[in-house]
């Protein structure tokens, strides 16, 4: 019998530069109906390129493709454009990473969900609407009627990704290609989307090609895995074999980069507090038409940060984590309550190292900025200090004269950390410092923070939604929900004997229910 998808010796070359650059080498893949295959690797490993080629979405001018891609016997690479269009959106559908930008901002959701029916079927507008509402209900959206008439910006990230899935599955495709569909989403939403994909696979027997750099998600969802590096498939096999006995060094590295949950001693009692937050409330007024609504973001929050500890703060986005950080550092004034700090110069590093560095300034100038603003140090001393700090984060002094655009994501986050070090802080607040980074780079940045903690005695308030990372890094953990600290305690208490329902839910969606200690 004909395979659903047969890819053999696929090579992809870029031709928009003078020297052609090969990004995918000898890619092979066979998929049967109803199978879920994971495609993992870091960004730039060629996984998205291969997937786009399979979907027939690589532009034909600047890409040269060699090899065969057959979908139910039809050659995707050589068939005429019109035959390819007949498959796209009907038999082969795609979901993308960023659901906000992947939806057309000026068209209603209903219009976009129905679009492939409009192209591939003869249905009347009424039949289409019926199908669209059913598809929206199938992806477990409450109130499909309202969603149908909304615009993308009126929905949350998770809802938008559900909409994308509804739009992709409305015509019951045989193959669904999901390109990093959960990367931009919260951890609880991530596992819901994975569950949804499982359900679709089971009910409609849709084959899924799941592309991700998150190995724990892949292990939850997929039957088979392909590991890619620098354009090559380095290892392939069923999930269990790959995870339990990886052969290739690179696969081992990827698996070990998943933050492990190892038992570390909890011995930070009897240490002085360096920050005391007492009974802090923060609320925002939001204008909703003429009505003014008051939203309580922090409700009577009291926390201590102890000398020399790494304190984790976890919770979903929107729960008030970042507001608490801003309040401690003084960027947000509390409505009531007090904050006492033992040391000045607490610094903050942010999630997005791309957005937080001024692209028009050299790294050296960026790093010297806090010193220039807050002290009267001479330019030579400033320079020397910048050189000292950039070596501390593992970069050479030559990086001081580069622009942020010349650095990789991991290097930029190092620069952000070095900048925070310039004022010799005792406490650094790290707001989701690694969630925008690739998993191997994540591990390096975390290692660096751990080193700074040990060598320089810097304390961290580590804010994250990734419970594995928090487990690896933190001595004590605070769990936050809707502006309230619902649970706090040492790592072992939180991870082994969670008391609050919400903590249990968080652990469950991170796949951490049965931790062996």
């Amino acid at each position: 019998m004909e395979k659903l998808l047969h890819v053999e010796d696929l090579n992809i070359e870029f031709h928009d530069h003078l020297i052609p650059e090969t990004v995918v080498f000898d890619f092979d893949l066979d998929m049967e109906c109803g199978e879920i295959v994971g495609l993992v690797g870091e960004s730039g490993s060629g996984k998205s390129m291969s997937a786009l080629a399979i979907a027939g979405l690589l532009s034909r001018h600047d890409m040269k493709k060699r090899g065969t891609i057959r979908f139910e016997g039809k050659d995707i690479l050589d068939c005429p454009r019109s035959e390819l269009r007949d498959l796209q959106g009907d038999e082969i559908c795609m979901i993308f990473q960023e659901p906000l930008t992947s939806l057309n901002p000026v068209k209603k959701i209903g219009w976009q969900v129905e679009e492939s029916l409009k192209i591939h079927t003869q249905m009347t507008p009424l039949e289409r609407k019926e199908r669209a509402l059913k598809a929206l209900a199938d992806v477990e959206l409450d109130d499909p009627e309202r969603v149908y008439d909304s615009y993308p910006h009126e929905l949350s990230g998770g809802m938008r990704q559900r909409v994308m899935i509804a739009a992709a599955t409305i015509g019951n495709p045989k193959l669904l290609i999901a390109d990093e569909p959960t990367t931009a989403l919260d951890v609880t939403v991530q596992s819901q989307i994975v569950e949804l994909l499982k359900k679709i696979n089971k009910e409609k027997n849709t084959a899924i090609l799941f592309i991700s750099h998150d190995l724990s998600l892949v292990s939850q969802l997929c039957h088979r895995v392909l590991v890619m590096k620098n354009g090559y498939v380095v290892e392939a096999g069923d999930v269990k074999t790959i995870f339990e006995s990886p052969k290739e060094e690179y696969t081992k590295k990827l698996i070990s980069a998943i933050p492990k949950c190892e038992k570390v001693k909890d011995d930070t009692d009897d240490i002085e507090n360096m920050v005391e937050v007492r009974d802090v409330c923060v609320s925002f007024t939001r204008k909703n038409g003429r009505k003014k609504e008051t939203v309580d973001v922090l409700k009577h929050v009291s926390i201590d940060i102890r000398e020399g500890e790494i304190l984790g703060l976890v919770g979903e986005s929107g729960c008030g984590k970042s507001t608490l950080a801003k309040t401690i550092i003084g960027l947000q004034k509390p409505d009531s309550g007090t904050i006492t700090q033992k040391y000045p110069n607490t610094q903050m590093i942010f999630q997005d190292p791309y957005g937080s560095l001024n692209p028009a300034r050299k790294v050296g100038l960026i790093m010297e900025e806090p010193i220039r603003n807050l002290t009267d140090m001479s330019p030579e001393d400033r320079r020397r200090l910048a050189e000292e700090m950039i070596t501390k984060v593992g970069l050479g002094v030559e990086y001081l004269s580069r622009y942020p655009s010349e650095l990789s994501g991991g290097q930029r986050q190092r620069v952000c950390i070095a900048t925070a070090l310039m004022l010799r802080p005792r406490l650094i607040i790290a707001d989701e410092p690694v969630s925008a980074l690739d998993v191997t780079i994540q591990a390096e940045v975390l290692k660096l923070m751990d080193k700074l903690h040990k060598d320089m005695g810097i304390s961290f308030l580590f804010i994250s939604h990734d419970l594995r990372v928090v487990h690896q890094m933190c001595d004590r953990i605070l769990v936050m929900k809707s502006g309230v600290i619902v649970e706090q305690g040492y790592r072992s208490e939180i991870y082994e004997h969670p008391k609050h329902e919400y903590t249990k839910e968080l652990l469950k969606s991170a796949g951490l229910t049965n931790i062996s200690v």
Partner: protein
Amino acid sequence: MKYVLKKVLSCIITLFIVSLLVFVAFSLIPGDPALSRLGTNATEAALASLRHQMGLDRPLAVRYFEWLASAIRGDFGKSYSYSMTVTSMIADKLPITLTLMLYSMVLMVIISVPLGVYASYKEGTAIDKVIQIINQITMAIPPFFSGILITLIFGMTLKMFTPGGFVSVKISPSRFFGFMFFPSLAIALPKSAMVLNLLYSSLNAEKKKDYVRTAYSRGNKSKTVFFGHMLKNASIPTITFLGMALADMIAGSIIIEQVFGIPGLGRILLTSIQNRDYPVVIAIIMLIACVVIVSNLLVDIIYKLVDPRVKD
């Protein structure tokens, strides 16, 4: 609807503020209208009595509110230089200038939008490059110079119209619109080049957006992706520019009227400024302000219709 009302209200307030500023400014700038009317040889007594007659000796606030009350009714007072009301002086000139402005606007859209869309659709081809080169040249030519060139080429050489041969719409509508085509073109050309450029680059930027890839993944034809998905998104920045261009065109009209010998508002404005005929100048400034404010209002309303993300 609430959105429109809110915008209209803010327009009216803006208009009042403009009127106050203009009125006060013209009362404070040096230059005595009575003196300019009677000449430097006039006696102090004659000047004083003329000032009294013109109402210039009364307090500023009183004069402003009197002027405002009648201006709302469409009466802008009497000209200092001619024994006519300002309204009657402007009444038959205003339609000519407005025609010129709207005509240019229509030409601008007709020229720029299809060419911009076409060039972007054919991005990278020879025809795209030819359009780009012509566009760069056109953009660099100021309207008065394009007016001179058009007179030279279409008027003197090709004899498609008679330079300076303005025909009133009352005599022959067809010859009026035939003549007005050329000055309108002179105003529209450089602006079209800018609109074309803006539309072209916003369309090209849209091509790289994620939702375009999504649209292709559903099996859309390139044409449908281009016209069904991208065009509306790319038109958003262009609409803003069209509003600014409309406001700018009234200034362009005033210069072009001189080049083509059109008896519009431009000529009265210039002579009134020379004669210190302030009631006329103030009335024309208020009219220009009205046009600018109304075109901004239109842009805001169209914006709201095109982009659902615009908040109330």
